[in-house]
């Protein structure tokens, strides 16, 4: 369903329906975040610095969350196999640096190089998911893990030479983490950056996300996008209407994988580092829970869900630790992140209507 009709519906429906649709956990999370913002000034934490922090984290993560949308629409469920796309992105990043591109060019080249990998991986991954309809989520998780652990070996073996990335001594094998400030660090965030006192807005990164989100929104309004939504809503209906269900699902997986590849590059340009080896293991669950917090279900997700979800999720994980630290000198951010993100996924899994396919 298009964002437009959805908002019209909720606006038209009465308050209780809106609340029910919003869901109790989302309400609790939103209220909690609001509370954090209210308490923040009293704990000596700078309010605007906090806002900046949340906006920054949003700009790093939003594309990864957006990558969930196509597969949700086509009924492939939540993309627990996000690392497949992330690996493609990492290949793009490392190769672009290896080939010696710098600055903005290195970002563009990373995207260009990552694209064929993302398409190839996405096609293989989509082919597999078409073979095992109904068991997508669990298998996606483990396909993601297998690919990540396979590339753990590849990062060691592949003949990267660039001293910024590779281990100095033997000259083979990449480092676990390396900075990208010489390459594409901040190329989006610093573009048209707005600074008002302590408030810093990474305009370029936000615009880039807005651009991708617009493309996604537009795609969902085309003939093929409509077919994709219908496949997710009722695959038998779609088949009876002459749609090649497997082809549409494949397309959605490829899109999702490609967006994940772009997403990790955007994340890196903001974060400032490339993280290899085990890092991609932990990227899927936050993105999954962010879109669920945003109000998506297993076969319905809109751009609004992405935006709200990412703000809420990143808000919680950045605000809570600082506020808690200020209040009782206790850093429970890691624990909170685990409980909130996995709790949200559990909530969605145990609801029939939310994860029906």
């Amino acid at each position: 369903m298009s964002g437009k009709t959805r908002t019209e519906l909720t606006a038209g429906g009465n308050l209780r329906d809106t609340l029910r649709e919003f869901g109790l956990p989302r309400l609790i999370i939103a209220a909690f975040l609001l509370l954090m913002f209210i308490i923040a000034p009293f704990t000596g934490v700078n309010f605007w610095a906090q806002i900046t922090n949340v906006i920054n984290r949003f700009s790093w993560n939003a594309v990864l969350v957006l990558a969930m949308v196509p597969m949700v629409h086509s009924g492939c469920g939540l993309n627990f196999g996000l690392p497949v796309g992330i690996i493609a992105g990492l290949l793009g990043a490392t190769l672009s640096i290896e080939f010696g591109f710098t600055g903005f060019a290195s970002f563009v080249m990373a995207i260009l190089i990552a694209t064929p990998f993302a398409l190839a991986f996405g096609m293989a991954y989509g082919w597999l998911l078409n073979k095992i309809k109904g068991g997508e989520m669990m298998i996606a998780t483990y396909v993601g893990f297998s690919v990540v652990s396979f590339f753990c070996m590849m990062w060691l073996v592949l003949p990267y030479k660039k001293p910024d990335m590779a281990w100095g001594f033997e000259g083979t094998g990449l480092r676990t983490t390396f900075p990208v400030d010489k390459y594409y660090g901040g190329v989006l965030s610093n573009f048209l950056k707005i600074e008002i006192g302590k408030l810093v807005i990474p305009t370029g990164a936000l615009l880039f996300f807005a651009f991708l989100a617009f493309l996604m929104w537009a795609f969902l309004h085309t003939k093929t996008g409509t077919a994709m939504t219908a496949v997710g809503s009722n695959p038998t209906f779609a088949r009876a209407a002459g749609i090649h269900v497997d082809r549409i699902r494949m397309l959605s997986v490829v899109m999702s994988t490609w967006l994940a590849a772009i997403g990790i590059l955007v994340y890196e340009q903001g974060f400032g580092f490339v993280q290899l080896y085990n890092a991609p293991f932990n990227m899927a669950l936050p993105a999954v829970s962010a879109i669920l917090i945003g109000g998506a279900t297993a076969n319905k997700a809109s751009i609004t869900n992405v935006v709200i979800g990412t703000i809420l999720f990143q808000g919680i994980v950045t605000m809570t630790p600082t506020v808690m630290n200020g209040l009782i000198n206790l850093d429970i951010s890691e624990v909170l992140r685990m409980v909130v993100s996995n709790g949200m996924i559990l909530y969605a899994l145990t609801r029939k209507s939310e994860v029906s396919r």
Partner: protein
Amino acid sequence: MSNQAPLLEMKNIRKNFFGNQVLEDINLTMQKGEVLGLVGENGAGKSTLMKILFGMNEIQETGGYEGEILLNGEKVTFNSPFDALAHGIGMVHQEFSLIPGFTATENILLNREPQKKSVMSEIFGDRLNLINRKNMETQAQTAIDKMGMHIDRHMIINGMPVGHKQFTEIARELSKEQLQLLILDEPTAVLTEQEAQALLASIRIMSEHGIAVIFITHRLQEILDVCDTVVVMRDGVLVQNVPAAKTSIPEITRWMVGRNVSTSQSDGRPVPETETVMKIEHLWVDMPGETVRDVCLDVRQGEILGIGGLAGQGKLGIPNGIMGLYASGGSVTFEGESVPLNQPRNCLDRQLAFVSEDRRGVGLLLDESLEWNIAFPAMQIHDKFLKPMLGGLIKWRDEKAIEQVTQKYIDELQIRCTSPNQKAKELSGGNQQKVCLAKAFALEPKFLFVSEPTRGIDVGAKALVLKALQKFNRESGVTIVMISSELEELRQICDRIAIVSGGRIAGILPATEDSERFGELMISQVI
């Protein structure tokens, strides 16, 4: 003997489903060891009656029933099948209720396994009792012997032929010592000729053991072969209750389909003598429960052809197979061109359309708006309701055109909804059916299959749907093939009616023909 209370008495049983009277004043008496054959068309009320007798939950959920049931002279009320089982009533359903990886023995005694106490079960409760395998085997064998059939009790269900699965179920009922009355719901439908004969023999043996049997089937010869009494139901009324020896197949058929009131015929136009528009030859369709075998059928340009027949005989398989929803083979020619099978898109491109009998599963996007439901196929097939952008590179959804077409059909078919944006799942069955029709009409087809268009919808909506179909046929000249279990409804709007029996076309008659003629065709090749 005669002054003893009868085994079962059902007195003045009435049942209505949401204001729809499906059973009216049913009275039925059965003696110990009696075999009663229950026949009637689909929807005659047989299964509802049996569900009441077996205490099925859906009866309570839909407001219970009126009247009383007496067992051995005592009034009983069953709140669940377990109550009925405790009173010695067993039922073998059409769908198997067996654990696939268990042996026959394990299934026969499922959850009634003989047990041995042990130290652990003294401490932790009865569920840690050991199962007494030896006793289990003897009990299972006894039940199998009681049935008078031979099945291997060590065999795993998965590896069994269908017939043996059926017999395992029967043996399970027989293994219950308190069993007095066994209900068999179309048990021979899945059996081979030989197995069916064996089953009839075992019914006789059960009867000799004093177990009463209610035998539901469409195969009338079997009824005459094995039953003491024949009970015929029609439209929720028990129309006949006679000793089997005193009746014949033609007579039973007449009772099954005969109507007291003759319904209004179609507008009385003569059967069109136009040329053939669709030629179906040697079609087979693998649709579970509705298998089609070797169907040959010619559909004439501009007519409304009805396809009728009993449930499970394959009438639904015909449109589902041709439209590519189930695997099929044979040849179909439309307007002189051959239509490749198993490709839904190809049929749609040739302007064939299909309104499925499975509204919720196939017919609708339940979670989407009416607009989407109505416009989607036309958008995907004929590129309607799309705005080309960037020189046709992008096909943008035209929300306005979609809203217009939806509003048009909402008015035309009187779909009751809050707005064109309402979700399909929020509509009533009748209105959902209208949406399905609108979806097909929006495709502007040349040829339309409509499958069970009035199933599960109320009388008012029914009339509207039928009228809309007739209007569509008359005004747009669209050829319609309508599949329905209700003969009367077919006779209302069709020109000709083909009857499917045993997966084959048993015959085609003008709609004006007597209902008895149709009834004879319906049971002619029943499997």
